[in-house]
């Protein structure tokens, strides 16, 4: 659920579509942190760039949007995933990308990801942990469900799979997370 947006979503959406800056702020700022985390999970180095593209597309199409709060989130994360896919296609064509030294340091430090689980974990640490422990499909499904607050049917529509596939994938993902995290050391909040 969007932070600060309760049952009066329809009213806020209508105001946002009319150009009310406070309503737009309420809609966008509530979703942005999770959107950015999702972008970061897929393309850490381009998270802000991609998020900017997503928000630009959302701003452009907001007036024609019609639906509830959950639909809005699903719409935004659909755009986000498409931007990620397109970005990867472009990157494939470019063939080479400059990489900072810190990137390799981070890779080395993730050889035993369970050790990252400590008392003071940031959301990006969890994202990184999920990415490392799960397969790409599993991580995407879990992150879409958790960060996007989307149900299985919405995630299925976004990733272009059946709802059943999503349910099976998420179940396997949770079992793997439970096993690996708990067996190693447990998690403290």
């Amino acid at each position, binding site marked *: 659920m969007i932070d600060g947006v309760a049952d009066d979503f329809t009213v806020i959406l209508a105001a946002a579509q009319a150009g009310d800056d406070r309503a737009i702020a309420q809609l966008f700022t509530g979703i942005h*942190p999770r959107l950015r985390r999702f972008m970061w999970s897929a393309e850490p180095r381009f998270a802000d760039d991609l998020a900017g593209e997503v*928000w630009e597309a959302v701003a452009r199409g907001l007036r024609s949007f019609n639906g509830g709060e959950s639909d809005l989130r699903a719409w935004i994360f659909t755009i986000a995933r498409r931007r990620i896919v397109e970005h990867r296609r472009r*990157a494939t*064509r470019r063939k080479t990308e400059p990489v900072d030294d810190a990137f390799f340091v981070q890779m080395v430090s993730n050889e035993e990801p369970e050790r990252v689980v400590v008392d003071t974990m940031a959301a990006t640490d969890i994202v990184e942990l999920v990415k490392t422990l799960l397969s790409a499909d599993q991580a995407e499904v879990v992150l879409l469900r958790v960060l996007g607050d989307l149900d299985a049917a919405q995630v299925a529509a976004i990733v272009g799979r059946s709802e059943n596939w999503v349910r099976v994938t998420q179940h396997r993902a949770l*079992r793997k997370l439970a096993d690996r995290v708990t067996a190693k050391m447990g*998690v403290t909040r």
Partner: protein
Amino acid sequence: MSEERDLDDVHHYLVPESQVDDLLAGREVAEEVSEGVTNISGLFAVLRQPPDVDEQMSAASLQRLVSMVGAHPDIDVSPRRAEMQPRIRKTKVTALAVALTLCTAGAAAAATGNLPGPLNWANSSGATHVAANAADAKADGSPSVTGLDNALNRITDAKTVPATTSRSTIASTTNPATTKPSTTTKPSATTDPSTSTLGSPTRYPPTTADASATQTAQPVGPDATGPAKHGLCNAYLDSLAKGHPKNPEAIAFRNLIAAATAAGQTVEQFCATTSPPTTTPPSTTVQTTTLPSTTEVATSPPSSKANGSGGNGNGSGGSGGGASNGAHDSGSTASAAGSSNGQGHRKP
């Protein structure tokens, strides 16, 4: 990693199916849960925690997005379509420009008795190459910019300069020399609005994605009363004779029909006036309508005449591209028409 292998190492902590949705949706799970479920719940709680300072959307970004919402009227366009439209449009315009260039080049060469068969092949290869360049130019991405502010700044800056999306801008600026039809098209429609007064037939139709930015940019097409008249008439009449009439909605032929109507004539009559006094009666077959142009070319410097027709053809190509998909088909048939014209000339 296969999913079957994933199952090999997950035997210790099973998550009941009834708790999966609760876990993922952030709802309270049942009190009697395994340690694994508790740990996962802790992980997901961190994922949902309030944002850090650097994760929040800044006021500047928000203000920019607010202006974007206000700047765009009700446009029902999916993000995918908006993304693809500049590329599709650019490819279409390029292909149509080259196709119609071939059309008029074929007519001109036919008039001089030289059918450009190999040249046609070379030109169509060039068209494919240019179109590919136009599409691939988008691949040149921009460098990474950290921060949502900078990203939005870059996006909006790129959109305010031309009336198209940023990627089409990149495409048009990165291939200035190779994509000749494209570069003659894009600047006139985007960066220099004053060229619209020149009657330049190089406009393309605004798509829904950039409709708001190009509401005043309408395709003008070639001037059917000017030097383009000869080429337009050739293409139009020959297509009629071949039983594949041109799309009357295409801007070029719409101009031709309008010019003929304004003169109180049919198109055939109007086109007949392009010929010397020895012209045959209008509304006849290909032979009768194309013969005069043969004599006209014969009495004038051949090379300069042919070049002139080619230039006009380029103009028609641009406008045809701006007209519609149907114009694309017209361009293709027009090219064939040019060749058949030439054969007709050589027989007598």
